[in-house]
Structure formats: structure tokens, C-alpha cells
């Protein structure tokens, strides 16, 4: 069994699976249940100053479902903790004392003034917590008061607050980033410049999941009105992965540890975040969808994967980052064509129709009058749309051409040439010096 023991910014936990700051980490009773189920650590639901905020007393969630009512996206209009600071601090102290081997980080959000941050950090230090996470990401409710994503969208504020916090405490300071921004590298660089020990991302994405077509209000609907909320769950995972990779590749952010968050549901999701540069992962929606037991599969799967690959957890971190590049550097001589396995094909015809309507008309529907789906290499551009719509795993695969030319374009199928070297590119680097 692979060793899943993890260390993130000096904080040890028995495995890299933490729960993100959210309803599952709201109270002692939740957190203790999580630890009993085997989670490596938690980030306690964001604390604020007294008097605490008030949540709506009605529905707080909108949802996007895939087939069979499978929850793939969750939108929340819940705010930070609605309990007093004192109660939270007492509970945190007790839980940390009772579960010394688990990571317990506290998420914080206070008004954007140095004394406010200094004061709350002192209070958290006294609980014995392992670290703090600065919540610069809440896209609703709090940013209307100059907190949450109102800070996270302004790199200068991030740097400023991070610096205040690093001056006020010796606990590790993790800065949580909001994805509601144009270029995630700027906030990440700002956090680093301010001295933050790590960044965690993503927080939730601004969203409205549904509009009720009878009451004409967004859901969740409170007394006939709705508002935008924070989107999370499997649907946001690709956005999070991309942002994690951007920070991991960025030279200015080099060495900045990353805690990966965003729709992690299975061991494979976690492994992908780690491969793209995350040092550990935080989960929320999956726990809210299935309960804390979900971590058992994550541990089992990640462990077996590491064993089979002969990798340690730290070997995996960032292993894919060198393979993340810009589009212009991709090899345009790499030519693939789709291949349909006739033994696995169930003849639904989806590959044909999507290629016919939405791609390059490269798949047959009949051959010699018989329903038969086959790729026409001279028309196929290798886009792999068919692979992604086919309902049968591995029925369609992409095969690389290793000799000659692409039958579709006549261009070479071997060697290397990227866009920066292509004659069609007006900004191409000249291969020969101009004479």
C-alpha cells in the first residue's frame, strides 16, 4: 500500500485529502465525523468577526444534474460561518487537541484593515490550529461589503493583506484565490510577493444554475427573488485544473505550493490535480453529494495508482507540468486519425452524425448498403470529437501516423514543426537568415 502521508507547507496529515472550508467543515460535529471517516485534514469554515453574518432561512443551493439526477454542479448562496467567533474557536481548540495527527487549518475573512487581521490571527493561534487560509474568494454576500472576492480580484489588496498576516503570525498562511478573474497568475504572484506560504484554488465561480420558468426567478428562490451564487462540483474541475497549471508553470510563482480545489470526486481527479502541480487537494462538493465515506475510494484508488506506477506522492506532484505548453509550440506534424473498433461498435451512429454536422464529414454511415461506421482517412482531421461522443469506452481510438504524409492535407506526418515556424504564420521565426 503506497504511503499517502502528506506534508503541505509544513503541515502534516496522514493523507493528502482535506475538506475545503464550507458546510462540511462548519462545526465540531461535522469535522469529527470527517476525521472518523478518515479525512487527512480540514479547512474550518470561514470565521468572521462578531456579530456573525446571517444566512437565508430558505434554499441555499441550485443544482445542475446530468443523467439519472447525478449532481455535477452545485451553486450556493451560503455565506461564511453564522456562529459566534468564540464558539468556533473553542471547538477548533478541542478538535485539534483530540485529533493531533490531522491537519486543521482555519479559513478567515475580516474587513480589509490590518488591525482586524492581526486580532483574529492572534485568536486563532491560541487554538493550536496548524495554519490559516485567507478567504479572498467568496463571490456573493461578502464582496458586497469589501471582503471575499472584492479583495481576490485586486492583486494589490491580496499582496497587502498577505503581508499583514505574515507579519502578525508564525502560522503558515495560505491564500485562497477566486477564479472570477481574467488571469489567475496575477493574484498568485501577488500572494507570493506578500509572503504567502501557499495558494489554494479555486474558490467558487459566479453562477446562476436555473431560472424558474413559472415564477421567473433564479434558483434558489427566496421569496420570489434569486441572486448569483458560487458554482462548484465536477463541472468546474477543468477550470480549476487549468488555473492550477497556469500557476505551476509560471516562472514568477516558481516554488509556490498549491492546494488544489475544484470538483474532486474520485482518486483520479485528485491525481490529476497533483500531477498539474498541487501539493495536496481539498474536497467539498463530493462530500456534500455522497457523505464523508467518499474518501475511502479516493485513498484506495490513489494508493493503488502510486503502487502500480512505482511513484511516491511527491513524485506525482507537478509531474505533468513540463508537458503543459502554449498552443503555438504544439507539433503540427503530429497526425492522428480515428479508428473504430468494429467488435465494440454498437452502431448507434453518433460518431457519424457529429462528424457530418459539426466536423469534417469523415465517417461513413453505410458501406455497401449495410449500416457500418468507418473513418475516411482522407477526410479525417484527427479532431477526436467522435471519440468523445461515442458511448462505448475505447471503441474509437486515435492512431498516430508514423510515416508519409497526412492524407487529408498532404502535409508531412513525421518530424517536428510548430506554429512559430510555420510559413502561414506572419510572425514565424525565419529558418534561414534573411539575405
Amino acid at each position: 500500500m503506497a504511503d499517502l502521508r502528506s506534508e503541505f507547507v509544513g503541515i502534516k496529515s496522514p493523507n493528502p485529502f482535506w475538506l475545503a472550508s464550507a458546510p462540511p467543515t462548519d462545526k465540531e460535529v461535522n469535522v469529527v465525523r470527517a476525521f472518523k471517516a478518515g479525512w487527512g485534514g480540514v479547512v474550518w469554515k470561514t470565521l468572521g468577526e462578531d456579530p456573525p453574518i446571517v444566512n437565508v432561512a430558505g434554499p441555499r443551493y441550485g443544482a445542475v444534474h446530468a443523467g439519472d439526477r447525478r449532481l455535477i454542479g452545485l451553486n450556493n448562496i451560503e455565506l461564511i460561518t453564522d456562529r459566534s467567533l468564540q464558539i468556533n474557536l473553542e471547538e477548533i481548540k478541542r478538535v485539534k487537541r483530540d485529533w493531533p495527527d490531522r491537519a486543521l487549518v482555519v479559513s478567515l475573512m475580516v474587513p480589509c484593515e490590518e488591525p482586524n487581521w492581526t486580532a483574529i490571527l492572534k485568536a486563532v493561534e491560541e487554538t493550536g490550529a496548524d495554519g490559516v487560509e485567507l478567504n479572498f474568494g467568496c463571490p456573493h454576500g461578502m464582496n458586497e461589503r469589501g471582503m471575499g472576492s472584492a479583495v481576490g480580484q485586486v492583486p494589490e489588496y491580496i499582496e497587502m493583506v498577505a503581508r499583514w498576516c505574515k507579519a502578525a503570525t508564525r502560522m503558515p498562511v495560505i491564500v485562497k484565490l477566486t477564479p472570477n478573474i481574467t488571469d489567475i497568475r496575477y493574484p498568485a504572484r501577488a500572494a507570493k510577493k506578500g509572503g504567502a506560504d501557499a495558494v489554494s484554488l479555486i474558490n467558487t465561480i459566479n453562477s446562476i444554475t436555473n431560472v424558474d420558468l413559472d415564477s421567473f426567478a433564479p434558483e434558489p428562490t427566496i421569496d420570489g427573488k434569486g441572486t448569483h451564487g458560487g458554482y462548484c462540483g465536477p463541472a468546474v474541475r477543468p477550470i480549476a485544473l487549468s488555473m492550477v497549471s497556469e500557476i505551476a508553470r509560471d516562472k514568477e510563482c516558481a516554488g509556490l505550493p498549491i492546494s488544489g480545489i475544484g470538483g474532486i470526486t474520485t482518486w483520479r481527479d485528485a491525481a490529476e490535480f497533483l500531477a498539474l502541480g498541487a501539493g495536496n487537494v481539498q474536497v467539498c462538493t463530493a462530500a456534500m453529494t455522497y457523505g464523508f465515506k467518499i474518501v475511502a475510494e479516493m485513498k484506495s484508488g490513489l494508493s493503488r495508482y502510486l503502487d502500480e506506477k512505482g511513484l511516491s506522492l511527491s513524485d506525482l506532484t507537478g509531474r505533468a507540468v513540463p508537458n503543459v505548453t502554449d498552443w503555438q509550440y504544439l507539433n503540427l506534424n503530429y497526425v492522428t486519425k480515428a479508428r473504430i473498433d468494429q467488435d465494440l461498435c454498437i452502431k448507434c451512429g453518433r460518431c457519424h452524425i457529429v462528424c457530418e454536422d459539426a466536423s469534417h464529414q469523415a465517417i461513413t454511415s453505410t458501406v455497401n448498403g449495410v449500416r457500418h461506421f468507418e473513418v475516411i482517412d482522407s477526410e479525417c482531421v484527427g479532431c477526436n470529437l467522435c471519440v468523445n461522443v461515442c458511448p462505448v469506452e475505447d471503441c474509437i481510438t486515435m492512431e498516430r501516423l508514423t510515416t508519409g504524409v497526412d492524407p487529408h492535407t498532404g502535409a508531412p506526418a513525421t518530424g517536428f514543426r510548430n506554429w512559430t515556424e510555420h510559413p502561414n504564420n506572419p510572425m514565424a521565426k525565419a529558418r534561414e537568415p534573411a539575405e
Partner: protein
Amino acid sequence: MADGRTPDIAAGRLTAEEYAANFADLHPPLSRHEALVEADRCYFCYDAPCVAACPTGIDIPLFIREILTENPKGAAETIFSQNILGGICARVCPTETLCEEACVREAAEGKPVRIGELQRYATDTLMADGKQPFVRGAPTGKRVAVVGGGPAGLSCAHRLAVHGHDVVIFDAKPKIGGLNEYGIAAYKTPGGFAQAEVDFILSIGGISIEAGKALGRDFTLDELRQDFDAVFLGMGLGGVNALEIADEDVPGVGDAVAYIAGLRQASDLSTLPVGRRVVVVGGGMTAIDIASQSKRLGAEDVTLVYRRGPDRMGASQYERELAQTDGVRIKFNARPARLVAENGQLTAIEFEYTREENGRLAGTGETFALPADTVFKAIGQTFLPEALDGAAQVIELEGGRIKVDAEGRTALAGVWAGGDCVAGGEDLTVVAVEDGKIAAESINRALTG
């Protein structure tokens, strides 16, 4: 040419292709695509009803989720940690009355998740590796004797090996595996699976086999208690109930259990003689198995006659439908009255209809006769206590089987028991596995406490 007055029992009624088809895997294994589609249907319930229904408490939602996330070997380990015979159980367990009956999707759409087939998908991947997922514990120097190498004994032996104890399995038959090897219908365990599973279980190490050694005949319980630190009895049911009508010994009347054992060991099914007209007396799984297998061997007419109504039948509705699909005719509420023989050979069997009177079965006086070349008795197996004779103290029995407490302890100190030979059980492979596991944990506590 049989003429109805002389018996028609013959071998080689079918072609080689027909034998192969009739005895091929009843449920071919799921493909990867089928497994993923099926695993996707599991709702990952809280305190899942399927787990509660499983006698070995396998964490079904977890193993299904592990299949779904393409970690089938992880799923297999999850299964084997609760049930080391998860392979055979996946093939023979009456899931239709256990986990799949409890599945919430049975309640929701009348289509439960195909848990048994998913369990086979997972266990097949790990067993194909040939690697034992468990490690033998550090040797304790303690020795345990296990009597009976069937599912109860194998389960007990493996768990004891995990704890580091030495185990010797004694079995009267030349091969171990118990009913897995000699009793389960051939089309449920094709390809020598029972022995492959035995090898898989034994590969943990620390378990040796003494085959062809019967309790009572070759060694006594007292000797075991002297030579070993603990004893586990898992010898199953060695006897079969008799019809208790006249001329029961007439040629043509056979014991279903013995015939099935022969069928399982036959390397060439075309050598097995089977009657043209077969009548099976009984209503449990064995009755169904002998009826179905007789049909699959080429019998023309197979009739199963059960003395009570369908609601009292031991065989599940699923098993009944299996037999009926095979072409077996099932008659209810009739019991054997008379065997008819000519020239010393069976030619027919007469039944009397029954009805319940004050909770007891009574004859109605109306009879009917079925022509029969062969009659199989499948009316229950019994525990043979004679093998225990010679023990200085006496093991307590209850309902003719060994009485045990919740930990599998018998009245005799140092002697545990489990499987079909104990009282109160459901005579299922999965229950035997659980009995063996519980007893092993109890033995371990006793030896190390």
C-alpha cells in the same frame, strides 16, 4: 428402442457442442463497458441495505465505486477483506434474495444493481494476477485443525493464517473445496474455478492439507484436541434424507447429491448416463440443480415434485424460473407414495396429493403416476454425528446439527464449528464463509488473549 416398460438410461445423448453449450457459464462475465454502465447505477447509499443483507458484510457501495473509478483490483480487495471466497460467492450466491433484493434501485425501478456480476468482475481481475492480496501474519507458533475444506473451513483457515497461526485442513475427499468443488451446479463454476480459488486462498501460506482423511474413520476429535491448540469443525452435511417408502433401493432411484458430485468430477459429460424420463423429489437448490442438469444432459422429460406449495419452496423464484426455462416441469403439493418396478428396475413413481391440516401435511387420497427411468432424492441433507463419537465429552446438538454460540464455539472447550453442520444457519456458501471468519477471530482471541 425403449418401449416404456423397460428403463431408458443412457449416456451420450447429446453432441459435444450441445454438452459444451449446456454447461458453459450460465452468466458470462461482464465486459468492461457493461461493468461501468452497471456500476454507474449504484447510488452509494448511506448504511446501505445491500451491506446489511450480505451475510459477510461486504462493503458493496465502496467496491462498486472502485469499479466505477477503474480500480477493480481495489474493489476486489474490498470484497476479499470481508469474504475471501468472494469469487465463488459472486457466482452462486442467491443475490436475488439477499443484496439485490434489498437494493434501493429494486425499490425505485424494479431493476436492482447487478451486484453479483459486478463482484465477479472485480474478483476476476485480482485472481487473474494470481497474487494473494493478504499477507500471512508473523508466526505465532499456534496450530489449529480445520475439519472440512469447504467454504467454512477455507474461510476459517485463511483468516487464521492472516493472524499468523498454522493451520491443517483435513478433508475426507481427495480434493478440497467442499460443495464448491463437488456440489455447485457445473454451469455456475465452469473452467475449474473451484480449485483455482482454493489455490488462491492457500497461497497465503501456513495452511497444509490432509486430503482423504475422514473424522471418525482416520482420526478422532479427541486426537485433534490433543495435537492442536484449537479445532474448527466445518464438515458440512454428510447424509441425505431418505424417501421412506418401500423399495427405495430399487435400481433407478438415486441420490441427487452423489450424482452431482460425479457430474462435477466428470471430465467427459457424454459418459454420464441420464434417464430419458427423470423425476426429482424435493424443493431446494439441490432439487433444482439436479433437475436442470438432467435436462442439460439430454433427458427428455424432467419433472420436479415438491410436497408443499411454491411459497414454501426452498429454492428461490429465480432458481425455479431457471429450471422452468430449461424445460423442467414443476408440480406442487404431492409426495411420493409408491415406487413401481418391473424386472427389478424402476419404471414409474406414484405420488399422493397433499394439503396442510392444522399445520401438518396430510394426504388427500388422490394419486397420480409419473413414468420414470430415474428418480432423484433431493429432500435434504443431514449432519452425521457419528463422526464425533469417541469424543470424551459430547458436543451439543440442536435440531440434529452442532449447536454453537455467536462466536462459533461449541459446548466443547477448544472446539468451534461453522457452515452447514451447525444449527440455525441458512445453508448458503456465504453464510459458511462468515461462520468460518467469525470462528477464526474467536479462535485468535482465545489463542492470543
